[in-house]
């Protein structure tokens, strides 16, 4: 057989259920049906029900086949995944909804995440697959979502959408930099310079990799290597990405920081970056209780104070950062004050101030 290359992905139309093929581009509106389920109504009057179920994203082929069984049974053999890694079952038959949900729940995949709710946590590899990780991803996600499950399933009501993301290092695979709540793995020790560095890496590349010019060429025992000016290192690990001979991980100092108030949608307010809330929490596997509690606390503040469809960042702008820190019981510290490139613009350059 000829080796085929550059064929690209299958054409998407092959994978669209007939009701979508028919009504493609001709949807009229959608409505919530119950938590985790919505219906889209087409101009033709056709209806498409979507049942969204939680997924850990890390899926075994066994589980995928189970999804397939359900899709074959209830959805004519079609299903999809969402941009937040949930799985969606699509059916035109309203009567399929309840049995499908029952089976999904039996399988351990609660239904929810639609409309005003807390959806899946977008996350990354962590200790499961990445060399760069300062924390695990899946373990924290599991622990946090176990705790927030009622906000996913709709058992508890929330004022709007809240997006949580996790990245296990500053590379921030995913959208940690723009999430309502972001959990970020962090190193807090400068890289160790391995003895064989010059065999593994080009020194000028390594020096150039550092955004804060913390790396200098050096000689040790007559061998070319680099040295790290520790005060200038802010632990970004870019040097490690460029050169494996500069490991960053540290069992005691690595951990997690918590960020709040980012968003990407353009609704009402413009997209915003996430801002530092908690500079450091320890790695405490398997259930990272400090992280779980902090996230819950922040979620609860939002649930209590946000107006309808108000995102975390919008709410904080309205009630003020001083109040947010007070409510969350977080100590404001030097770390919270920006000292990087756009630091000037992060200062309170107005007399508009929440005094209470």
């Amino acid at each position, binding site marked *: *057989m000829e080796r085929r*290359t*550059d*064929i*690209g*992905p*299958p*054409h*998407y139309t092959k*994978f*669209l259920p007939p009701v*979508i093929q028919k009504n493609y*581009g001709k949807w009229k509106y*959608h409505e919530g049906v119950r938590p985790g389920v919505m219906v889209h109504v087409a101009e033709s009057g056709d209806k498409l029900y979507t049942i969204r179920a939680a997924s850990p*994203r*890390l*899926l*075994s*082929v*066994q*589980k*995928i086949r189970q999804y*397939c069984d359900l899709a074959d049974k209830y959805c004519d053999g*079609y299903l*999809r*995944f969402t*941009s937040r*890694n949930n799985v969606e079952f699509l059916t035109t038959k309203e009567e399929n909804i309840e049995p499908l949900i029952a089976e999904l729940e039996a399988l351990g995949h*609660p239904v929810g995440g639609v409309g005003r709710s807390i959806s899946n946590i977008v996350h990354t590899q962590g*200790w*499961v*697959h*990445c*060399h*760069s*990780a300062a924390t695990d991803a899946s*373990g924290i996600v*599991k*622990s946090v979502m*176990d705790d927030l*499950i009622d906000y996913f399933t709709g058992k508890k009501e929330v004022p709007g959408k809240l997006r949580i993301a996790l990245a296990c290092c*500053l590379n*921030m*695979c995913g959208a940690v930099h*723009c999430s309502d709540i972001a959990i970020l793995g962090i190193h807090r020790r400068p890289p160790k310079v391995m003895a064989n560095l010059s065999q593994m890496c080009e020194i000028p590349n390594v020096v150039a*990799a550092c955004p804060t010019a913390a790396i200098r060429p050096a000689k040790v025992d007559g061998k070319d290597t680099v040295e790290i000016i520790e005060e200038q290192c802010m632990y970004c690990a*870019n040097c490690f*990405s460029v050169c*494996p001979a500069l490991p960053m*991980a*540290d*069992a005691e100092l690595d951990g997690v920081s918590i960020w709040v108030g980012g968003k*990407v949608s*353009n*609704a009402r307010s*413009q997209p915003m970056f996430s801002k530092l809330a908690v500079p450091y929490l320890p790695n405490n596997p*398997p259930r990272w209780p400090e992280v779980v509690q902090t996230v819950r606390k922040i979620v609860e503040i939002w649930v209590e104070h946000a107006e309808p*469809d108000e995102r975390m960042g919008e709410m904080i702008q309205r009630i003020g950062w001083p109040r947010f820190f007070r409510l969350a019981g977080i100590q404001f510290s030097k770390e919270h004050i920006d000292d*990087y490139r*756009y630091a000037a613009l992060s200062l309170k350059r107005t007399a508009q101030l929440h005094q209470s």
Partner: protein
Amino acid sequence: MAEGKKYETPKLDELEKGAWPSFVKEIKAAAQKSPMAAALLGQLEQSYNEKIGHWKHGGIVGVVGYGGGVIGRYSDLGDKYPEVAHFHTIRINHPAGWFYTTEALRGLCDIWEEHGSGLTNMHGSTGDIIFLGTTTDQLEKVFSKLTALGFDLGGSGSDVRTPSCCNGMARCEWACYDTMKVCYNLTMAFQDEIHRPAFPYKFKMKMAGCPNDCVAAIARADLSIIGTWKDEIQQDDELIKKFADEGLDIQRQIVSRCPTRCMDWDGKKLTINNENCVKCMFCINSMPRALAPGKERGAMVLLGAKAPIVQGAQLSSVLIPFIDLEDEESWNDLKQLLENIWEVWCEEGKNRERVGEFALRVGFGNFLEAIGLEPTPEMVAYPRDNPYVFYQTAKKE
């Protein structure tokens, strides 16, 4: 494959409890058949005990003729967990919108059960199907079976990464252009650029059908295409009144939160000054069916988003305020623009410098000149607020 060595995993076992689906259960399920998955459990448990990861970089691995699509990964505890001594992932270009038939999915499962750990990510953060963990010798086999099934690898390294999009017209009444079509067409147009890294750094593309941006394009893609419209919001006064009657406080909850305050509500009728509407979607989101995007629909093209490495995170910014994306011409314009961008960036970009960082380093105005676009006020949040102008004309005079 046979079942592998079993490890005690008391820490991980904790994560089988609770209502959220458990990734540990998934690994254990895979471990029923895959010794790799079993070893992964062992190494992961050790990480949980030691609070440190055990993966390392290694040589570049891949399939013949491709430079991207596989992430080489090695355990630093290879002696202890030989099954995961090599544990590469394969990135597979997902179908636009992440729709599948069960047939296709089962095909993928079969390949991966035979040639890998049986563990996947559905999906990776860029959008790919991730086959999580295999050895170098399996790569070609996986590849040939994948292509037989109609799938191909996605991007990795300094190439075009697998484009992704929201489900757009497939299921959303707000899609202002056909995200899945544009995503597919761009993917096909740039197969070479996806598979053979030749850029200073990665280049991502994401398409969202409207400003809700359900794929986070503005935050995560070097090229972000976001749907919008030019004309008036479609408005059904009867249905609006219904929302009001049902208790929506249109004044407080909608009108006074419009970013440009371009709406008025007199208690009965909503008046939108569409000239000042910035198409934020908020009022439409809040009253679906009663309000809808206009009829003259299309997209805007933005450039430059990225995560913090190296110079700090960036959001994409407007490059083309409005493009139709339906006709041949606008489609060619878009492709030409991309080629211009890559040419300039490849020529002058530094290693590991994303295109957004590059454009800022050389000056956004200079960048525009180099890629052949006229500057327009739509591209800026505000014109410069410092007087440090490099007046060019004067110099030439």
